[in-house]
């Protein structure tokens, strides 16, 4: 499965569910997840967002934080996975390009191992924060048989 999605600031705090069907005879699932841009390069816009944050988060503002130390502001999207019988976990980390493998005996960090059972699985793109005008996300999922690589 290949999915491309474009997110904007209004998509912050949302989940995009991507169900996909898996047949019989597979040993592992490979997820290639990426998004760009990662960083808000426009420092002027970033400083305006930070000044808004000072007004919103009063306790933080009391300590007169060094706003420049908060730069660059960044987008954060994470990938979660559900097997047909339940949640396997999430790769909650900053890297904007990730590759994950889930199989019966082992799984990439953040995910529980799970046999690649026949049925409807779900990948979820969790949009924690979009600070750029738009953020393009790509998710490619491959089901692999024993001995296969993507």
């Amino acid at each position, binding site marked *: 499965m290949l999915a491309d999605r474009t997110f904007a600031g209004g998509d912050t705090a949302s989940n995009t569910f991507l169900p996909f069907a898996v047949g019989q005879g597979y040993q592992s699932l490979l997820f290639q997840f990426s998004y760009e841009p990662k960083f808000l390069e426009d420092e002027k816009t970033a400083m305006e967002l930070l000044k808004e944050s000072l007004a919103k*988060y009063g306790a933080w503002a009391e300590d007169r934080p060094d706003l420049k130390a908060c730069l660059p502001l960044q987008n954060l999207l994470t990938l979660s996975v559900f097997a047909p019988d339940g949640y396997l976990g999430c790769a*909650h*980390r900053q890297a904007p390009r990730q590759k994950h493998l889930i199989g019966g005996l082992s799984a990439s960090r*953040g995910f529980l191992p799970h046999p690649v059972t026949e049925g409807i699985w779900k990948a979820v793109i969790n949009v924690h924060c979009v600070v750029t005008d738009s953020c393009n996300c790509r998710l490619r999922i491959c089901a692999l048989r024993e001995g296969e690589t993507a």
Partner: protein
Amino acid sequence: MNWFPVELHCHTTHSDGTFTPAELVRQAKAFGLAGIALTDHNTAAGWEETLSCAGEQGLCVLPGVEWTTYYGHMLVLRRKDCADWMNLRPDNIDEATAAILADGGTIGAAHPFRPGNPVGTGCCWEFSVRRWENFRYYEVLSGADPTLQAINRKALETWTSLLDRGFRLTPTSGIDWHAPLKDGTTYACTYVGASGGDLTAGDMNAAVAFGRTSLTIGPLLTMTADQGDRRYPVGSVCPKGGYTFSLRLDPQRRATYWNRLGLLPGEWRLVTSGGRILFQSPYRENECEISSALEVRTSWCRAELWGNVRGRESLIALTAPIYFVKES
């Protein structure tokens, strides 16, 4: 009561920590801790590996998850299923916490006043909680140099107001441990009280759930209330009346981790409703205990040690409260 130093907010490479589970266990042992709670973001994938490593090293691990939602971060101990993190909204938090509690989870609010988006994604507590009774703990000290940060002063004030409203929330600290600690920086340690000689995960959970904690960036502070031949530790619920409060300091516990950080104890305090000081006394060098007989008419009291941290007036330690009710 025996007191064990623990860290209740830790991450590994199963989320965005820099430590593998084995490295986290080594770091915790090197920092003189008896136990940790594993709280990776939105996953329990690290439980088995961390428990295994910790067993080999003699560290107690209480498995949990940090529900890193879009509207605040919630710590949930002893419950593996965390899928609903992505569905939490300010208006459905009470239903979610009721379900977690019914399933045996122990729930805490993490760093409630840390800035949220875009500074710290989802970090600020924006939930409209009506059922604070579903929560067991509240992280009042978070991060590096926690007693010097306004976000933690605000957390302490808010926790105090929740105590005044009748919610018996246990205070905890959290390094929010992602990476190696910095030299020359203070970090709060949560001591949990247990009756056994060795700490178990069940002890850690019970201490957090039932108010047997003491937080400090330096020496261990404890408090008891004596009435006749009965001695009540923190977390107890006692009848209102006359008590002799004893505040004690242990300057030896984990001293190598904090005794070069410029902490100067200055004042003992017994604090009550509204954050009012019921009793205060200057701290005298090498003093380890003070006592005061008082008539308690308020609903809770806690002990605090104040002093100087790198030239600034600062909280150094505080205990969970003892609670007082009208005798029926």
